[in-house]
């Protein structure tokens, strides 16, 4: 895929992903740049890296940071795991239906995307675990505080 084709792929991949994950907000979110649009910034940067490196990299794990940037955002959008990794399958479908990519290359793309999807699910699970852990930490703090407030000073509390 040459750079022109890659850019066209990137644009349609990004548009479809935004439409899928942020319905009703896609145009506005796309409009902003940089720090005033962290979602768009993260998706565009990460997708560009994934698309550019997917075929050339020897170690798919090197794409984990880019995947992480996208999945970490999607993991806090109240979306199920499937929807949170759908962006990879959007790309997969586009590649499958592309008529100008040689069959061998297409096969390689798809194999690698499937492997990438496994990593994306792992990341999603880690994000959700972190999120619940943060909630538990907050609850623990509250309980510790309540316990200290109802325990006499002689017993180590502050009551």
């Amino acid at each position, binding site marked *: 895929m040459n750079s022109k084709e890659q850019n066209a792929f990137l644009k349609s991949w990004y548009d479809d992903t935004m*439409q899928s*994950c*942020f*319905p*009703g*907000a*896609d*145009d*506005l*979110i796309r*409009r*902003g740049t*940089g*720090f*005033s*649009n*962290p*979602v768009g*910034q*993260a998706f565009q940067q990460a997708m560009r890296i994934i698309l550019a490196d997917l075929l050339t990299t020897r170690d798919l794990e090197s794409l984990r940071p880019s995947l992480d940037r996208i999945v*970490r*955002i999607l993991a*806090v*959008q*109240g979306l199920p795991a499937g929807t949170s990794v759908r962006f990879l399958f959007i790309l997969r479908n586009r590649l499958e239906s592309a008529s100008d990519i040689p069959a061998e290359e297409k096969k390689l793309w798809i194999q690698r995307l499937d492997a990438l999807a496994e990593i994306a699910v792992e990341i999603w699970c880690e*994000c959700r675990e*972190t*999120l619940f852990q*943060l*909630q538990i*930490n*907050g*609850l623990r*703090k*509250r309980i510790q*505080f309540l316990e200290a*407030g109802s325990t006499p*000073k002689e017993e180590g509390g*502050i*009551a």
Partner: protein
Amino acid sequence: MAKVPKPAELLKNVSYEKVPDTRWMDTPVDFRPGTWLYPGKAESLETLGLPNPRKWSPEDADWKLPPNWKEIILEGMRERLDRYRSFRVFMDTCVRCGACADKCHFYLGSGDPKNMPVLRAELLRSVYRRYFTKAGQMFGKFAGARDLTEDVIKEWFYYFHQCTECRRCSVFCPYGIDTAEITMIGRELLNLIGCNVDWIVTPVANCYMKGNHLGIQPHGLVDSMDFLVENIQDITGLKIEPTFNRKGAEILYVPPSGDIFADPGTFALMGQLMLFHETGIDYTLSTYASEGGNFGSFASMELTKRLNAKIYAEARRLGVKWILGGECGHMWRVIHQYMDTMNGPADFLETPVSPVTGTRFEHAASTKMIHVTEFTADLIHEGKIKLDPARNDGVKVTFHDSCNPSRAMGLLEEPRYILKHVCKDFYEMPDETIRENTFCCGGGSGLGADENMEMRMRGGLPRANAVRHVHEKFGVNMLSCVCAIDRATLPPLMQYWVPAVSVCGVHELVGNALIMKGENKRTQNLRFEPLPGSLEAENE
């Protein structure tokens, strides 16, 4: 002459395929888990004398509203339109230019169109038009008006508690509409029918009855302070003796209670206590007004006034000359924008004058209260304290402008001035994310609960994204701030988005760097971690 695009050029980018299936008015709210807040406990409402205490949940179909709820809301709106000219102006003025649309951190982090400030305000405006304007009464939806229904109340509850009242949108509004005040009125109206949030109303009840949001009684407060004093003694060898309720002290010091009980706020408070000891100022704390913050401001003006009044009542009772506020955020919006008309003028107090430098803080001539960073920046400027920034070596710090001190009181330079004197490595985040343009922590204005953690992570994304940038570019590992809510909400935010970055108060770094008369050679910072260059650090 400027080239103006032709209609056809503009329209070619409009896709009618992407128009939502239903209009926003006809799209009822979906209470998604991780997004909404638990309702106020009945006993807290009873403590405060608020209407309609009951057990309910936003997920229930029946919210157990009072039978005449509609009448109450409309009468409440009428009263507020008469009382606050600003409210009427904000209801009438918006031209829906969209300048605010992509400025809200919740919109940027979630993409939910109803989190655009313009649309969030429209939730209330549509009802205003229907019942208070001729056009709305005559033309209904064509004039942007809609009937007040229970679904509208549910929508208000959901979205007015997804606004942190940070006022970033108001910075960009060409008309100066303060959308935070629209949210505040929206929440006030909800309070009239008993639709409030526990994370707000219970701290308010605690503060009303016991003097602080956490509900700690006076002896518990003193014990907690003793614990911090012991820690300071362990680190410096110096015994600090803060006093409580001491009549005749020159200054009443009011920190946010979160800093007395929870890390990392405790470290910031220790730094302040060390500074006061070193400069020998004559101050006291109050156990009656042991809370600088004001969660009342997240519910209604009436509750704001009640909590704020305690500070001034205590200043009068103790006979102090002026008030020194701690590293707090929303305390300062109340002090600078509402206090004087609510509980002022505080003419029984004096314009604050630093007893160390003699600087007269004229800007506080009305409120008689200054922020501790103003006090400390003045001490540094006048060369009254000795600092060793090397003790903070290894700390690469950036500064998060807390929404209220920055946008409500213009406190932009003082914290930076301090940081540059106590640390060698200070880095700013990108311009569009700091100072007046600062992004909220995502948990202010009563949204810092645990049940809405997903929403907090969405709302905090723009801030975290800027922190991530300076972390990757400069190796920043510390996010400093001057707000107790930030110190509670930013740590989980960082743990999720940028785990290598910790959070601290500005005065924690002051406490580390402060050279105190008679102190032992310091080997640990205020977190009991080895100081750079110490034997312990070398052993590690």
